[in-house]
């Protein structure tokens, strides 16, 4: 089979395969974000992120932070509601990677399960159920846009200033890492009441949401 023949048969799109590139980027970042286990003396697995202070951490942080910022900016710039949801998903996933960097593995996983998996799908459901067309644009007034942009940027600058001014060194220090067991223990001892209350709340929300979204009134 000659190359021309191949050419003739398939009209397009070998080059499209290189769209793998963004996928590989995400993949690589995530791979490297994975944490490494270090056995502590107590036998419990305590995990840390890429060793604090290492080059790896710096590289990873900037990569993931860029991803976070780009996708969260994209959320507010998108006009299409489904795309907003997609970018939100990207943001949430990146934040989950940031959690990995912050040695909060459990939280990161939960973020993926609950937030990215559950909440987002809920949103998408909402989008699909409530939109005649996702391209339907409800444009706010020019003034509102400008005002919002101004306020947000001022706020950002203000926050930045605050961060610069703050004397973080006077605060208690960092810690090595944490295990799921610690988290569970404090959740069931110190924070047991909020925990229970959250359980009750979820139950109520479940009933309430089911009631709200019920078809036959």
């Amino acid at each position, binding site marked *: 089979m000659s190359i021309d023949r191949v*050419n003739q048969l398939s009209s397009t799109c070998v080059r499209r395969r290189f769209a793998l590139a963004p996928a590989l980027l995400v993949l690589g970042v995530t791979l490297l974000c994975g944490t490494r286990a270090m056995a502590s003396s107590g036998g419990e697995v305590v995990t840390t992120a890429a060793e604090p202070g290492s080059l790896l951490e710096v590289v990873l942080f900037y990569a993931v932070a860029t991803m976070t910022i780009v996708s969260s900016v994209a959320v507010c710039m998108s006009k299409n509601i489904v795309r907003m949801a997609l970018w939100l998903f990207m943001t949430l996933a990146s934040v989950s990677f940031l959690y990995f960097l912050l040695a909060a593995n459990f939280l990161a996983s939960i973020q993926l*399960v609950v937030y990215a*998996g559950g909440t987002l799908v809920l949103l998408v459901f909402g989008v699909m159920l409530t939109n005649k067309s996702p391209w339907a644009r409800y444009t706010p007034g020019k003034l509102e846009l400008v005002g919002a942009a101004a306020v947000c940027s001022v706020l950002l600058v203000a926050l930045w200033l605050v961060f610069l001014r703050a004397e973080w060194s006077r605060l208690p220090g960092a810690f090595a890492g944490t*295990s799921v067991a610690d988290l569970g223990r404090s959740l069931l001892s110190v924070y047991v009441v909020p925990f229970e209350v959250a359980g009750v709340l979820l139950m109520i929300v479940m009933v309430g949401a089911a009631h709200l979204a019920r078809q036959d009134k």
Partner: protein
Amino acid sequence: MTQFSVPWQPRPAHPYGMASRAVIALAQSVYGFAAPIVSRFPGAILISAVIATCVGVWMHSVLFGWVDTQLIQAAVTLPDYTPPALSLLSPSTWGLTPSVIHALRVDETVAASVAGLLDYVLWPVQFWIVRDVVGLGALFGLFNVIPVYVIWWERKVAGRIQSRLGPMRVGGWHGWAQSPADGIKLILKEDLVPAGADGPLFRLAPYLTIIPSLLAFLALPFGATYVLRELDVALVFILGVLGAEVVGVILAGWASNNKWSVYGAMREACQMISYEIPMGMALLVPVICVGTLSLSGIADVQQGGWFSWIAFSNPFCFAAFVCYFIASLASLKRAPFDLPEAESELVAGFVTEYSGFRWSLFFFAEYAAMFVICAIASIVFLGGWHSPLPASWGGGLGDGLLARGLTGLLFSGPIWLMFKSVFLLYVQLWLRWTLPRIRIDQVLYSCIQVLLPLTMVLVFGATVWTWASTGHNALWSTVEAATRIILGSIGLVFIGGFIAIAGYGFYHRRRMVGNLVQDVMPGS
């Protein structure tokens, strides 16, 4: 001249660039070289490739282990030693130099005879990043190989179940190259984006589907030392990333701008979200019994052979295994829960508008996720990489290479995990080609009204059981042991029955059932 009205804009064919031409030429020449050989010894080649892969994987583990235990530990005793970190800025973190390695290595009889070149081979292995890259390459390879061969296998299994042969031609021996050939075909197929579709999202969706299932491999341990990233929350992590797969599917359905696709996407979302809950709850049962979310930790408690496997440790885990398997079928959209792509209802569901390479990405994701789910089931319930023989029996084998090989084969090694996962995978295929599809309301009914309460009860029961077990009561220990024996025996009976059925089928196999009338009839 009449213009055909087509819903997409006719496009000029893109001429291939030089790179593409080169790739295609290379592929052709390789195939032209390999095809005669391959078609002569197809089975042998396939089997030896599998064996070579196993050996390669095993060798790399041996190598890494050797570097860890011998080299670095030895080096720690050296003066002015700094741990290898590969920071580009300071050469002091570049680890052991080849000369130091050589000095350390000469003590080793294994590698003493090899030339000094080996020092330079060993040098990068001391850096984690190198190992990560190696592991990543292996995982990526596995990630590619698994779907390809599971698809081929599925077609063979389906063929057998349906009294036909399945792929027989491509590649020779039982059509083993069918799937790669299909892959090549799919890559070369025209890649359509329907008019009115949301182009960027349409193109992005397959990747969003495939990346999560790829990520799941990162934290998946294949053996005690065969894991890229040992996560203390591996179970939740894998569940989470697999759950994120649904986003891609929804986007695919939505961006296709096809109503059937939207139906498929909605079904998928609905089904996946609802079944994640019983699935997670069913996995919580062994987690409660063991007390860790780390997959390695869970596997570690199952070293004691068949009866120590978690599925047999108490009735709740046993039931949880069944629940997990059912729920995982649903969240993987496998039959009888394959509603999102139900061809008799939704044409092809969310993949209706996809073709070519993107289409194949969805299937890569699906089959890889299937494997991951089965691997988790094996690790969490069926002893992980431990064989049914107690690991303690292998204690006397020593530490030599042969002993390690034997241990890996007989007691605990990745091969056992693969074996178990593949067995569960087979059960999935088996179910798919046996059962009709259920309806969406029945799907949700069985989730919310059956599985969810059931798993809730199981979690509660497991908690009580575990609580009772912490008391170190003699009577309770007896009860526990008896439970293990009873449940283990049930498992044995099940496996025995399976083997018996398979054996019966093999014994009574017929080459072609349809040959009854064919060759004897007049006129044929």
